[in-house]
């Protein structure tokens, strides 16, 4: 068993001081680490768990990681931070060469400071070339903290990662300016840290051989974290990202009756698809008609169902970013010039109050 020690409060003083003093790296330190990077250093993927199993994004990250490692024959490793994660480790071992497991009770619930601390020490120990993580709410908070402590650049919300054949630098493609442009950022500090957006990669397939599971014996610092969770208010459990068909309501759907009409369409579509969900644009969520968990778009969910129907949605780039990957896109809007039609396969111009009942009737007759 490898031994990996985390700072202990009793020896080193309060967490806040320990880290920051030891950690904010000097220019010379960064330079030195960059020179030390070995082309055989591992590509490390952080496992995302959900209800004791790997979350779907984990397999997408593994796909990205395996593509990176294959380019130069690097080792693909994953790490799991959590508590009671042996099942998870067994599952993921079929997808990577090595599985590093940091199992500690304090990691059972996501705490950005503790998770950043654990990963920080893991990075010092393993010296990964790249650290590949998912663009999730949790990592959006944890990863910049880690980047600050390691003193390396981080690129968030990437859709693609590659390596420069010559320098080995990581090239991270991400949409910028609200999706109006796309930039490729070059990372030249190590570990090269990247957050990858869901649905960008196809899930990785199982490997033919099972990787090695390596538990890391660690004492995670349990001194008070900088902020403390007092309560958790659960939202509606909606899995927009796993729906086969989505009907989304926009600003044009002004009231609860309008939503009711859309729900009727969903009822009908359920005769054709296994999972049909109700989505929303950001303005509709901000009007309070539907909860934020239904928001499709850049700051909401990224979805790619087989069929996406946009009702009363004008088609701001914010929204399009969240659903461009859909199989077929249908738009229903009063305004023939609405940008949504430019992104749609099928368009119906007209008030949804008249279009939807006829559409529902037609679908019922055909089913």
């Amino acid at each position, binding site marked *: 068993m490898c031994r990996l020690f985390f700072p202990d409060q009793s020896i080193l003083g309060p967490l806040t001081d320990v880290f920051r003093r030891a950690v904010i790296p000097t220019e010379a330190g960064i330079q030195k680490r960059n020179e030390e990077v070995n082309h055989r250093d591992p590509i490390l993927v952080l496992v995302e768990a959900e209800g004791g199993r790997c979350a779907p994004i984990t397999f997408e990250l593994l796909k990205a990681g395996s593509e990176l490692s294959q380019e130069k024959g690097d080792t693909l490793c994953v790490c799991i931070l959590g508590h009671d994660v042996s099942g998870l480790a067994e599952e993921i071992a079929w997808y990577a060469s090595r599985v590093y497991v940091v199992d500690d009770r304090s990691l059972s619930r996501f705490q950005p400071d503790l998770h950043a601390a654990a990963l920080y020490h893991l990075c010092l120990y393993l010296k990964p070339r790249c650290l590949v993580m998912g663009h999730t709410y949790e990592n959006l908070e944890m990863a910049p903290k880690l980047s600050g402590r390691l*003193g390396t650049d981080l690129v968030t919300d990437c859709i693609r990662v590659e390596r420069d054949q010559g320098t080995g630098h990581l090239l991270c493609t991400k949409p910028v*300016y609200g999706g109006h442009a796309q930039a490729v950022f070059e990372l030249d500090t190590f570990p090269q840290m990247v957050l990858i957006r869901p649905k960008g990669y196809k899930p990785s397939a199982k490997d033919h051989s099972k990787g090695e599971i390596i538990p890391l014996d660690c004492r995670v610092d349990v001194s008070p974290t*900088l902020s*403390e969770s007092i309560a958790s208010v659960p939202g509606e459990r909606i899995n927009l990202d796993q729906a086969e068909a989505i009907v989304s309501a926009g600003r044009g759907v002004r009231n609860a009756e309008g939503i009711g009409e859309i729900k009727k369409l969903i009822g009908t579509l359920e005769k054709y698809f296994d999972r049909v969900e109700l989505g929303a644009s950001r303005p509709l969520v901000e009007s309070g008609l539907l909860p934020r968990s239904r928001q499709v778009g850049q700051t909401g969910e990224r979805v790619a169902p087989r069929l996406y129907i946009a009702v009363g949605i004008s088609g701001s780039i914010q929204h*399009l970013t969240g659903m461009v990957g859909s199989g077929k896109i*249908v738009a229903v809007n009063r305004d023939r010039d609405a940008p949504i039609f*430019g*992104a749609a396969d099928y368009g119906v111009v007209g008030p949804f109050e008249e279009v939807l009942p*006829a559409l529902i009737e*037609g679908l019922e007759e055909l089913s």
Partner: protein
Amino acid sequence: MKPPTLIVCLKTVPDPEGPPSSFEVHPELKKVVPSGIPPVINPYDENALETALRLKTRWGARVMAVSLSEKPMVSILRKALTVGADDLILLEDPNFQDLTSLSTARVLCAAIKKIGCYELILTGRQAVDWESGQVGLLMAEMLNIPAVNLAQAVALEEGKIIVEKLKRRGHEVVSASLPALITVSSEAGELRRPTLRAIQETRKKPVTVWKADDLGIDPRGLKKMNIRELSPAPCRARACCFLEGESAAERGRNLALKLREDRVL
């Protein structure tokens, strides 16, 4: 509680509500050049400013707006004063162009240290130009203070803040000791409109400009974003088949038939 000092970090960006044609992408310059749209305060930073102003109403706080830019943006940023901010501090230096998140955070932290005493720093969750979403959290790391990401509501109490932090589903209520930093999301609410009184008072409010030198920053230590390529967004356009029909209802019905015919259903 004595009136706290709140620092809000603002960035100017091309108006994100502008039509797609106003974002001219120049691959050779590796720049997006806005055409025909004015710069505005980053919308999420406006949410942060609004959050600070609400705390000001409640606690009589002093709200200081700080902005980093490579060229003067005072005409845009003065808006912060007209809605109720008390001070405007501009970190203006040609060397501050296209900095990485880490370097941006370093410069802002130097300004915060120069300001000295504060209870709370507020930033937007991300800027809508490069969409990095890191500067606030990096500042908290460098200042060694707690940070809470994606705030939708904030309450100030003696020595601490209580923050509602967005999660993918629902939210979490988090408490942190002061001084602290929060990044604010659009759920916190839109920025108020200027009041006549605040507009009149604006002339008396101080606007300070600090250059790299004033902050004790050696520009050679600042790192610029390493952009290898910049290209227009990949084409999202699809050939839209508009359904025909005399009435909207008929077009709706024809959509059902068409979807069946094309085996979408």
